[in-house]
């Protein structure tokens, strides 16, 4: 239990200050496949960005730039919603 805090070291009621909270790379939970994009096919509709439940689609302004695998869980929704089949789920 090393590193865990005592009851009298915790904020009242467990309120979490985002700056004080760890931000674990939850992409480590990903199982199975990861998304791969064919950039020449992408039409930048941003449906994958809109649907991604983990905010793992990265943008530069309003332009699709790829996937942040540090948070991607491999659910495949991006590949499913892509209207031009530019995203495919591939083995790790």
């Amino acid at each position, binding site marked *: *239990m090393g590193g*865990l*805090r*005592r*009851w*009298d070291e*915790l*904020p*009242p*009621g*467990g*309120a*979490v*200050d*985002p700056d004080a*909270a760890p931000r674990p790379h939850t992409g480590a939970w990903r199982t199975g496949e990861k998304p791969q994009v064919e950039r020449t096919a992408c039409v930048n509709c941003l449906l994958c960005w809109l649907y991604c439940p983990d905010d793992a689609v990265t943008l530069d302004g309003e332009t699709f730039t790829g996937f942040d695998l540090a948070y991607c869980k491999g659910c495949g929704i991006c590949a499913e919603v892509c209207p031009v089949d530019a995203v495919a789920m591939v083995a790790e």
Partner: protein
Amino acid sequence: MSCVRLLTGGEAVAHAMRQIDPDVVPVYPITPQTPIIQTFAKLVADGRARTEIVNVESEHSAMSAAVGAALAGARTMTATSSQGLALMAEVVYIAASMRAPIVMAVGNRALSGPINIHCDHSDSMLIRDSGVVQLFADSAQEAYDLTVLAPRLAEDPDVLLPVLVCQDGFTITHSAEPVELLSDELVRGFVGEYRIPHPLLDVARPTTQGPFAMPDYYFEFRRQQAAAIEAALGRYSELGEELAGRTGRRYAPIEEYRLEDAETVIVALGSSAGTVKDAVDGLRDEGVRAGLLRVVSFRPFPAEAVAEALCRADSVVVLDRADSPGGTPPLRAEVGAALYGSGVELSGAIYGLGGRDLHPADVRTLLAGNVSHVGLRGAACLV
């Protein structure tokens, strides 16, 4: 200037709410609490308080809205009774664990069934272990005074817990008596501004509230909550002394009545203390050394003060206005634990369920011998 008015307990608490002027009051009507919110809503409608009253569809929603409002940064009050408190119970635990300093007026009423609208303490005892502070008033005056005290106690940085000011349904909520109302300025000055450590609406410092806690932290949060209500006992005494300085009335966690040389002491909560005092006076006139210990703060329970006050008695009889079928009634269990090892003889009786009156003669029955119930048909139910 303070003034004395003829008010019911419900009206008196509504005036305390007007003077406190909470930001938000989410509430659902239920007998015998209804006069509290009915009176308060009229005061708000008349422009005498600026509170936003949220008319919710149930007590579960009332307490849920209260948690959100209190944690957002708004001083929040509500009120309920009986089935309403039962329906709230799930969220009462959450309010305590999220450390939401909500003040709630409770008009104590029996839980169904059979359905009944009159007083007993089974509703309060249902949430005995929720982690909220429960103060039991013996009169409309004390219900008013404790309501004035409650926001400071709830919002204390070491406490941050819901505080329930309990008054006996009908006996106090609907009975008029002269009540001294403090001046609006005094109450506002005493209560002060609402401040909590992590208000949700602090956009410069957003926080997550009520996070999931796995086995690695749940236990720690429960311990933290227990420490908060332990801290409430000392804080209540300090605030009680401060308020006593303004009112001349006393607000200790317990009230001791003719205990100095008492051989037999009755322990009770709430309005029945008045009847017991009357009986004690009669017994004293006959040479019987009887006394009363009234517990004001049931949660946190002032075990040390109770033991100190009772240790010189020969016998102690605890009156419970709620049963714990198959177990020990709640007040008797607390007093028994406080007196463990003291050698004081302990007994107790159930009384007054569903609003049955306690008469002075019942108190004499209690002292005459071991009885398990008073006021129940079938005589004294000798143990």
